[in-house]
């Protein structure tokens, strides 16, 4: 009996394995309806363990409780179950040490299972989903308790109903539950997650690398962007299934926090449900806040955006492309790529953009400037500073890219400070003057790839006709496009953020600063500098050198919260409950900062737009200029 129950248990494991494998078949079949992507699956699969243990865990670890839970339950269950599968070999079955090991693993898993249950009990946190998650701990518990009991019986040599029938029954029930969870429930992430990790669309991200640039679209393709789920790459479809609904994206999404009709988790789940042909009601997490109702139906081949579809259009335009969700996602899902793909179809195939955005895009097409302002007016704010203009065929060391912000009175002040610093230190620099067009960032984030490529082509041509060593810009959005997105279109330059250049000048001793006595200063990281480009240190070094007292907001560095100014959100007439910059300035106030240091024209405009009383907003260049004691 005792011997037999061991063998049955091993058989059960194999049976479970088979059932799981079978459950994956429809999933794989569905994914194959997505677009083919050149992915080296063999190398990808080989890399999975490392990707899982390093990169995924790095993200999971940001919630220590979840990491513990996951390590115990996944580790225990997988190890116990795998070991039990080896029980097919009778030699093992006779070994007490073997059973002791099985018992230890399953007992560990029981502890983990208890933690799984505790997550949603007695009260489910809002960021977590319910539904099948609610009985998942019982299925796991049945399986693991069964396994433990069985092992205990084997060790102590006891048999009987308690140590053979009961454990086997528990394992049978638990196993069936697990099969249901994997085939039709959140546990599918075990399989889809592995697939996605192996076939990730940005493998460069693994091992601490960065890959944030949007990829060019073939403008001759019949379908531009994604209108229906099957327009996505097959691996992207897998990534939707890989979502474990942990809600970290939701917790970090600035639009969600401000009640702006976007919940990245609900978005990914909406896409996954649409792809599976399930109804929206199957989703049990928080919805996109205040989003108007939609039909909530979908299929692989029906439009996913729209009131008849799965996701309301407002959701798309609320995204600031800040990448906070992507940064947080333990499954490394690419929310921003997804949103931009969806926007591309809306913009390029349907012309469905918000009136404000349509106006901006029209200006970009017709006058190469999003406000329809004369290109010659861009440098107006620098008129008193005698900045040379780099003409065609000319040469300089540093080409200063002014960006869209230069038109604003406020940011012109920052640029003046920067120009003064460059003049002080004798840096040989110039601007493009009237030849500087919009870099195309806004068009691209709004999904208008056609206008982006048109502008990028002209800009690359303009830059190609001038000689310079590197480009410096105070606009992280322009920096991101010039540095990361133009290479794919044939333009590669060394591009520096102005804080990096100033930091370089200070460390080279060309600029001497004296920390001024100021009230506490907090640095607000621009998304496109910190998350997109990983630059968080140079600005902080500069601040430390020019202000007596710095503080950090709770969310800073790569975890910083967006100001709300990116991704075309400000021109998209987004319905607002709260304004994102208001939330950010509240966070600044909580940190005790009286001055918020910024390094981006978008952040400056958004944060200064917050009604007073609020902290003063100053660009790092301005703070540095005030602190200069010698050059």
């Amino acid at each position, binding site marked *: 009996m005792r011997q037999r129950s061991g063998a049955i248990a091993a058989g059960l494991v194999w049976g479970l394995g088979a059932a799981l494998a079978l459950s994956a078949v429809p999933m794989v079949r569905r994914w194959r309806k997505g677009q083919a992507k050149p992915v080296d699956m063999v190398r990808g699969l080989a890399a999975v363990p490392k990707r899982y243990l390093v990169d995924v865990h790095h993200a999971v670890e940001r919630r220590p409780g979840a990491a513990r839970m996951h390590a115990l339950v996944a580790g225990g269950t997988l190890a116990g179950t795998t070991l039990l599968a080896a029980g097919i070999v009778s030699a093992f079955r006779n070994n007490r040490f073997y059973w002791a090991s099985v018992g230890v693993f399953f007992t560990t898993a029981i502890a983990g299972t208890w933690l799984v249950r505790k997550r949603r009990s007695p009260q489910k946190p809002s960021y977590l989903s319910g539904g099948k998650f609610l009985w998942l701990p019982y299925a796991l518990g049945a399986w693991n308790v069964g396994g433990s009991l069985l092992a205990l019986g084997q060790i102590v040599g006891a048999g009987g109903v308690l140590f053979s029938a009961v454990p086997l029954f528990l394992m049978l029930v638990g196993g069936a539950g697990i099969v249901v969870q994997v085939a039709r429930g959140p546990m599918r992430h075990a399989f889809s997650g592995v697939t996605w990790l192996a076939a990730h669309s940005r493998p460069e991200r693994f091992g601490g690398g960065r890959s944030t640039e949007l990829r060019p679209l073939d*403008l*001759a393709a019949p379908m531009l962007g994604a209108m229906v789920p099957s327009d996505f790459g097959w691996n992207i479809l897998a990534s939707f299934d890989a979502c474990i609904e942990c809600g970290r994206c939701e917790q970090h999404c600035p639009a969600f926090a401000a009640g702006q009709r976007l919940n990245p988790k609900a978005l990914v789940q909406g896409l996954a449900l649409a792809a599976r042909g399930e109804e929206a009601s199957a989703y049990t997490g928080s919805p996109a806040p205040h989003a108007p109702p939609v039909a909530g139906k979908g299929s692989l081949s029906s439009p996913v955006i729209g009131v008849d579809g799965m996701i309301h259009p407002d959701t798309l335009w609320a995204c600031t492309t800040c990448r906070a969700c992507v940064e947080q996602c333990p499954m490394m899902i690419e929310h921003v790529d997804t949103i931009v793909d969806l926007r591309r179809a809306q913009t390029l195939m349907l*012309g469905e*953009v918000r009136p404000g955005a349509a106006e901006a895009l029209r200006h970009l097409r*017709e*006058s190469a400037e999003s406000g329809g302002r004369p290109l010659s007016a861009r440098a107006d704010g620098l008129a008193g500073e005698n900045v040379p203009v780099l003409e065609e065929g000319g040469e300089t060391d540093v080409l200063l890219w002014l960006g869209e912000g230069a038109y604003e009175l406020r940011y012109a002040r920052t640029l003046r400070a920067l120009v003064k610093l460059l003049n002080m230190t004798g840096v040989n620099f110039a601007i493009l003057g009237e030849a500087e067009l919009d870099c195309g960032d806004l068009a691209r984030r709004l999904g208008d790839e056609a206008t982006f490529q048109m502008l990028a082509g002209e800009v690359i041509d303009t830059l190609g006709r001038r000689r310079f060593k590197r480009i410096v810009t105070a606009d992280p959005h322009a920096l991101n496009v010039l540095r990361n997105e133009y290479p794919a279109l044939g333009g590669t330059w060394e591009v520096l953020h102005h804080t990096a250049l100033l930091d370089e000048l200070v460390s080279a001793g060309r600029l001497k600063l004296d920390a001024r006595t100021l009230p506490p200063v907090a640095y607000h990281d621009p998304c496109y500098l910190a998350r997109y480009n990983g630059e968080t240190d140079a600005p902080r070094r500069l601040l430390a050198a020019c202000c007596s007292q710095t503080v950090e907001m709770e969310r800073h560095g790569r975890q910083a919260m967006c100001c709300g100014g990116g991704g075309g959100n400000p021109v998209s007439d987004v319905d607002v409950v709260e304004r994102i910059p208001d939330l950010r300035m509240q966070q600044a106030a909580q940190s005790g900062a009286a001055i918020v240091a910024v390094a981006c024209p978008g952040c400056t405009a958004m944060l200064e737009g917050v009604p007073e009383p609020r902290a003063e907003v100053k660009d790092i260049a301005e703070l540095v200029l005030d602190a200069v004691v010698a050059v």
Partner: protein
Amino acid sequence: MKAIVLLSAGIDPVSGRPAPVGGEVRAIGLARALGAKTLIGLHAGASVPALADYGGYGLKEIICLSGGEHDPVAALAQFLIRASNVSAPDLVLAGTRGCGGADTGLLPYRLAEKLGWPIATGIAAPLEEQPAAGRLALAQARARGAVRPVHVTLPCVVTVSDMAECVPSFVFADKRAVQVRDERAERTPQGEMEEGLLRPYRRRPKLISAARTGGTGGQLLVDPTPEEAAAAIIAHLRSLGVLAAADEASSSKMT
């Protein structure tokens, strides 16, 4: 209904880069609002890349009359007369004026004259109630948001107001799908040339009068009862015509 939209190769007033003319974009929108089934763009001149943008606003087909730039009215009229033999257009729509050339806004009028068609001008939208076939009821846009109903016999030329809100959205996929077809216009002699000297525009201020604070005296009521005061105000406003008569006021409320 078959409609032709007259297209010109315009420029953006700020940057000077080639750009579609706002009025012509609105003309496409108005044609759609009028329920035009067939919608063709017509350009007197050889095709230029910027014309494809009109495709983005909803034109599937654009015909360019190469050589027509010498005398656009003649070229367009010839084309339209020829087209009438096959399937006559009911409607020719145009913007109020071009953007980048002489910009006089005279072309649609001349074309209507040449075709012997009536012309309805400054139109913002169709009226809700349409008359029997063969006529069209349109809303002419007037300053301060006012409108004037215009009834016109088909076939006709219609110019679209720059205040019209019927701006179609721009769809890149449609732009790349547009068929721009070159058709040789019959050789026409060079039309009249504008005389004078062409030079960069110098912006001149509009007239302003001398600032003044005082004024001439008028009717004066000292310490009237509120009733007297109100009655005087109402009577005065009525005499100026700014306050509708009581019966008009109630009837205007109903419309």
